[in-house]
């Protein structure tokens, strides 16, 4: 168990180190998010949307920026191993489940870093007031986790296909859309301050994240070693 954890965290640490050397994923994710945020803030701004529509419409824009930013860079975690031909070495060095968990931790950290910068900026620039702040943080944490689980396994699949860039969005989005619907409703709920919507969202996102974790942990060895 400890050995497995050590392997997994070694994979995540290696990814973080190479990421900070090249900054490919962080640049593509972060700059994409900031550019879209600038565009949204310029065109919509804090005053264009009527007060009663704000909680919902601003939630939609926020999650669209987060999801599309994630789709712009999270496939790097596996694609870079195939492109630099380091994947065979990684297969020898660590067990498949440790690789999966390490990559998941890496993607999770990237998403949380993105959220930590993007979400406060978004709330300030768009004038998005949240009534239930801690519940909002909970939704962001759970949503970020489910997003990381799904994109990690899809990135592993498309790293082994021929056309990678477009395929990542094509394969991820249908799996992510239900999650996106839940998260938008939940964020609109915390912005308005309606606890019932929050609890149903948390349950839906938790079960989705949980099931996806189990299924991808079980299926990853097939994707990784075939």
């Amino acid at each position, binding site marked *: 168990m400890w050995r497995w954890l050590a392997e997994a965290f070694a994979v995540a640490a290696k990814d973080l180190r190479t990421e900070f050397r090249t900054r490919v994923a962080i640049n593509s994710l972060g700059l994409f998010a900031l550019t879209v945020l600038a565009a949204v803030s310029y065109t919509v701004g804090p005053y264009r949307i009527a007060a009663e529509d704000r909680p919902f419409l601003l939630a939609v824009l926020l999650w669209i920026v987060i999801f599309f930013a994630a789709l712009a860079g999270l496939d790097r975690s596996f694609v870079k191993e195939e492109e630099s031909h380091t994947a065979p070495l990684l297969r020898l060095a660590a067990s498949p489940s440790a690789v999966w968990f390490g990559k998941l931790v890496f993607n999770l950290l990237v998403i949380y870093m993105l959220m930590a910068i993007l979400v406060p900026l978004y709330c300030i620039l768009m004038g998005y007031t949240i009534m239930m702040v801690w519940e909002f943080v909970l939704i962001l944490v759970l949503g970020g986790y489910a997003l990381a689980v799904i994109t990690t396994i899809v990135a592993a699949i498309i790293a082994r296909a021929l056309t990678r860039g477009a395929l990542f969005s094509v394969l991820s*989005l249908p799996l992510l*859309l*239900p999650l996106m619907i839940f998260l938008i409703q939940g964020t609109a709920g915390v912005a308005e301050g309606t606890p019932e919507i929050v609890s149903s969202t948390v349950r839906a996102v938790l079960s989705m994240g949980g099931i996806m974790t189990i299924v991808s942990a079980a299926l990853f060895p097939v994707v990784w070693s075939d």
Partner: protein
Amino acid sequence: MLRENAEMEWIVPKPVSEILKWVLLVWLAGVIVAAFFYVQPAEGFIGESSRIVFFHVPMAWVAVLAFLVSCVTSVMYLRRRDPKDDIRASVSAGLGLLFAVLATTTGAVFAKIMWGAYWNWDPRQTSITILLLIYAAYLALRGAIDDPERRASLAAVYAILAFVTVPFLVFVVPRIYWSLHPDTIINTRGANEFDSRYTQVLLASLVGFTYLYVWLYTIGCRIEEIRQRRRQEVL
């Protein structure tokens, strides 16, 4: 690799299937006639719109059944690595996509008559759209991988992932959000709200369309098997 003398795909033995094919023709013709002449339009629905239930519900059921078959055969492929399981999964996913399109279309016609618009992003319509996207993505993934064995195992993994999201789409999304969609056959109250003639025709239609799926599935698997064997002969 497919074996030279591999048995052709027959779920129903060949002579029986030859007869059932003609039974199916008569059966489905009977279902169509019954749907329009045997039952009375249901109360609470505009005009004759309730009759579409005899086509819409079986389409949706077959679509889900096909996706279930695709998921099960994908699991079987990963367990025993038989190329025929991969053929089964891909044929079934293709048919599931076809029936899901038909369910969406019949649903849109009903929506136009009852709700005034073909499309209004009702939760049911949203969920079927995502379902269509998932299986279109599955077929796109199959197109993007050259190596047959890798294609089979990666597609199987994606089919299982996709099937896991189906319960969220079919059960969770419509439950959380308010929907105009009439109560489903398996509803929360556990009550069957159809009168007996409705139940008879609907069951007959379900049986008919399910066998139509089985028949198309058998043909699809055989065609795909022959195609792959031909490719091996050429190589």
